[in-house]
């Protein structure tokens, strides 16, 4: 089966499940579909750095959490009618989603630039450990920040608004998240096919040849990391809005691990790998979680089987062509 048909089927399937659940009066299923879309978005961000760029970041929870806190900080100030700062100019919080998204993208990109500048000085296993360490650093920073809830996190009473829509209606909020996912996936497809994407892919496979062509692989990797952080930051803001809650656990290293797991389950470096992986993860969490409190044992065994048996993931299995990874 051609990969583009699988992609179309996966995305149509996600949309149809949500619509069907909405029509059948099952708002919880709509919320689960929303969670799939948001996790897929977060993993799609990581997929650019990891799948195409070959940067095994075990610290992407940083960007997910930063996006979440961007939403939390802006919305909590807005709901308390308390400006974030007043000098040198008055900066108010906001409850408007588009502004929150812009903020999440900006801080995600900025954090990725700073972390990327330091981490990309190293490679291989050092890179993995350093990104992991940065994740922990932000985790402890979030805990140590009493103004925004410290270890307990921040709650938002009402979900943030989007002009013309009722975001508290599950299907409308799903629509927003799903539309963002589609736009980002389209951008990712364009990036992968662009000169930048092709060079990035080449920099993973044959860095010496890329350098010989006069391109600096580290610059490509830094930009990939920045875009990746921005997208994952946006997903973090949506995730915090879904739960109307943000806490330091969004920064925890387990989140970073799970984002990689989503990509692997779905298929590394494949456009809709994150969607397939996120869907499988949420289904397993619900199904196995219903069977046993210790469902993660089975998730671990499944993951081990996928890794040991080969890395095509679901999309690779369906497409029956060797993984690009």
């Amino acid at each position, binding site marked *: 089966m051609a990969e583009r048909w699988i992609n179309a089927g996966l995305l149509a399937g996600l949309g149809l499940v949500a619509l069907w659940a909405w029509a059948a009066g099952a708002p919880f299923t709509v919320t689960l579909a929303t969670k799939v879309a948001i996790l897929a978005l977060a993993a799609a961000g990581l997929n650019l750095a*990891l799948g195409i760029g070959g940067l*095994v970041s*075990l610290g992407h929870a940083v960007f997910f959490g930063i996006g979440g806190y961007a939403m939390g900080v802006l919305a909590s100030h807005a709901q308390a009618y308390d400006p974030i700062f007043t000098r040198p100019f008055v900066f108010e919080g906001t409850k408007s989603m588009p502004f929150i998204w812009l903020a999440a993208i900006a801080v995600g990109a900025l954090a990725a630039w700073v972390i990327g500048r*330091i981490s990309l*000085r*190293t490679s*291989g*296993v*050092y890179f*993995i*450990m*350093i990104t*992991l*360490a*940065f994740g*922990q*650093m932000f985790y*402890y*920073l979030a*805990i*140590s*920040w*009493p103004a925004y809830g*410290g270890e307990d996190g921040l709650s938002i009473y009402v979900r943030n608004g989007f002009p013309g829509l009722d975001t508290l209606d599950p299907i409308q909020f799903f629509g927003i998240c799903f539309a963002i996912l589609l736009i980002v996936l389209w951008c990712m497809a364009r990036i992968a096919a662009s000169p930048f994407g092709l060079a990035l892919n080449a920099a993973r496979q044959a860095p010496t040849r890329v350098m010989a062509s006069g391109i600096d692989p580290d610059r490509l990797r830094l930009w990939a990391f920045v875009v990746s952080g921005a997208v994952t930051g946006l997903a973090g803001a949506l995730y915090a809005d879904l739960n109307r809650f943000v806490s330091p656990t969004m920064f925890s*290293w387990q989140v970073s*691990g799970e984002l*990689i*797991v989503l990509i*692997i389950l779905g298929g*590394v470096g494949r456009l809709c790998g994150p969607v397939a992986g996120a869907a499988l993860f949420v289904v397993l969490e619900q199904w196995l979680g219903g069977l046993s409190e*210790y*469902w*993660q*044992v089975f*998730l*671990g*065994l499944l*993951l*081990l089987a996928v*890794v*040991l048996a080969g*890395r095509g993931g679901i999309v690779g299995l369906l497409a029956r062509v060797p993984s690009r*990874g």
Partner: protein
Amino acid sequence: MALLIEQVLNGVQSGVMLFLMAAGLTLIFGVMGLINLAHGSLYMVGAFAAAAVASATGSFLLALVAALAAAAAAGALVEVLVIRRLYARDHLDQVLATFALILIFSEGVRWIFGSFPLFLDIPAALSGPVMLGPITYSKYRLALIGIGLVVALGLFWLTQRTRIGVQIRAGEADREMIAALGVDIGRLYTFVFALGAALAGLAGALVGAIQSVQVGMGEPVLILAFVVIVIGGIGSIKGALVGALLVGLTDTLGGVALPAALSLVMDLSAAQATGAALAQVGIYVLMAAILFWRPRGLYGHG
């Protein structure tokens, strides 16, 4: 002054315990080229084995033996079943497979022992304080420093002075060559992995007596141990020792100095919480600074 000496000793104590974790990780990475996220799970296995045996027999010494044996056995088993298949794979596969092992170990232990923390008592012979010149210090913590240093000396002796140490160092340098010279590389790898696991299990049991024994106790230590070997240079036992002491001292001294400094600008309880968390951040700042200056760590090569 007495407080400062006591805090330095605490820093050294947490440093040598980190060293036990980091030494195994760095050996496993140096010899087999494997990044093992499940090392923290072996720490936890050691602590649970010790707590279970201590509550059944009442003997701390037996508990330590059980911790070493259980962690070494778990390590050898995991190496033969899973890890062996990962040596030729890239780091991404290693990260994922060992992340899967963490899930299996953590939830498996929760399944067997439940979610409540277990407690491991300090043996009577080592409880209470000891006079060290002008200060009194916990006898048990002093014993931990002693054990850590003895293990460090033992590891240097093992890697520098014995036949197996020669094989380990040769394996780091050129694995095809030592296989061609007739060393059974599969057995050597299993041995190194089990040795690293036993050290992690020992650390888990020893630290478990000061903190509580619970699921998830291994991962924060694992991440600190990663920081240690990144600072020290991957594959270097000397680097692991220096890095562990640096991290232990930064954590402990920062944990005292920062709340004290912050209490000047905020109220005491907030300063305590914020300062302790910021001390953790200090460790990562230290790591970033060292890497910026030496991307391969203090004693790394290549």
